[in-house]
């Protein structure tokens, strides 16, 4: 599978750019909470990494059948390229769901509400704490790059609640994302 080399700043810029457009408006009920969450999730480009990309008729595009389900469980990848010393830091699989860098290899998480493989058993508190602290479930292992959680940490509790409500409202997709891989050395 072909790979694309990204600058780490491209994703950060994308997220930050999206964040500036977000109006601060109150959320009155469940339905509007979910809609607000959809708006935030789409504007902040969650799907860019958490939905696998494939080649469509117009070129690379998110695979809608796997929306937000993270790195595909059955996908076998060769070892990530060794970039050696130099300014190039990271490489990413064409799905945009597997990233290699100094931290090892990380695979984007399943954000659908599947109980066993996604965020089905997460509570709202878990979600908010995870994005505030950069720790899995809000208290566990570090959330690895390139997840730009420091940007999301700046959102209000209400916005984070809305995002969680939207994610929980989406169809559950069973997809057990692989554990991260340690760096070669």
């Amino acid at each position, binding site marked *: 599978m072909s790979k694309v080399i990204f600058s780490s700043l491209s994703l950060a810029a994308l997220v930050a750019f999206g964040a500036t457009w977000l109006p*601060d408006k109150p959320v009155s009920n469940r339905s509007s909470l979910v809609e607000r969450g959809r708006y935030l999730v789409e504007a902040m480009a969650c799907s860019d990494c958490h939905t696998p990309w494939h080649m469509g008729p117009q070129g690379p595009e998110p695979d809608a059948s796997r929306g937000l389900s993270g790195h595909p469980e059955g996908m076998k990848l060769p070892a990530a390229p060794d970039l050696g010393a130099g300014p190039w830091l990271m490489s990413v699989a064409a799905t945009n769901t597997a990233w290699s860098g100094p931290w090892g290899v990380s695979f984007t998480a399943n954000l659908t509400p599947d109980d066993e493989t996604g965020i089905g058993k997460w509570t709202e*508190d878990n979600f908010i704490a995870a994005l505030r602290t950069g720790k899995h479930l809000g208290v566990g292992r570090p959330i690895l790059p390139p997840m730009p959680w420091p940007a999301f940490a700046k959102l209000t509790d209400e916005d984070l609640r809305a995002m969680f409500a939207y994610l929980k409202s989406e169809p559950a997709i069973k997809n057990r994302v692989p554990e991260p891989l340690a760096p070669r050395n």
Partner: protein
Amino acid sequence: MQLRVRDRWPIVLLALAACEPVAMLEPVQRLSETGLYADIATHRVASDVIAFEPQYPLWSDGASKRRWIRLPAGSSIDASDPNAWIFPVGTQLWKEFAFETRVETRYLEKREDGTWLRVSYAWDADQRDARIVPASGLCNAAQSTSGLPYDIPSRTDCASCHAQGDGVLGFSSLQLSADRDPLALHATRSAASELNLATLVKRGLVVGLQSELLQTPPRIQAANPRERAVLGYLHANCGTCHSGSGLLSGLDLKLSVNAGSSDLSAIDTTVDRPSRYRPADWPHDPIVRVQPGSPAASTLLARMSTRFPAAQMPPIGTHCVDVEALALIESWIRDDLAVRESEPRTEL
């Protein structure tokens, strides 16, 4: 609220340790100002602080530790719930970490609003005082006995462990039982370890403790002495987060032990229980937390055995695998649990 342009730039994708400072009252800048020492230059502690020693210490890469507590005059700890003591406003606790010389002293103080001030002080090279550590912590503050870097944790990391209950660890019914575990790993015996439930109650520092816990000091109910030490180690090193409640309640994993009961949750929620952690190319099926008779097939041990940040347990506070604990728990899984599996379960 909109994000401002200048807020965008600090988005750092590789910021594994990036943390927001915890809102807090102004802490004092030097350890000498906290009231621990009568004379910090000679390390003579104040006469009204009380040294203590939990029977099951937390592993911190081999650091030697000392601990003290001070309660405001006339106040006491409410121990009505033996597993959730409530400390009076103004309670102060200190914990010193040393590798031959003092490295840091962590400090807790309970505020009027019931929250805790949590800061750490890094000792000066001349050991005559310690200075406050920034909220983001201090990497590479020292070398541990294994030669690996020793980091002073961020205040966010402090909160990771101290968020349970009233936020105090190591000063509890089980940890201060007079019926101390002779096989507890890394435990030291000193005058501080003489402080126990009975002396605390006698001095009026603890009130409301069930009389049963005074008559029969709490003890982990286990099948044998080794299992008792294992459960104690898991309680102190894992059970703070894996308490069966709080943010990790959804994991259905409880490694803490409730004092005054036959609490075998650490066995019930691990042995033959499916593991959510499923490393690539794991050669055993099914993947379980603890497989009786087979340490190699137990993901609990796999996570204790690594220091890859995305997999290690505990996730913070250590760069060095606790080999003594691994050996103890391997023996328990390989020998004790295999026997337990082959025998009918009896109430202990």
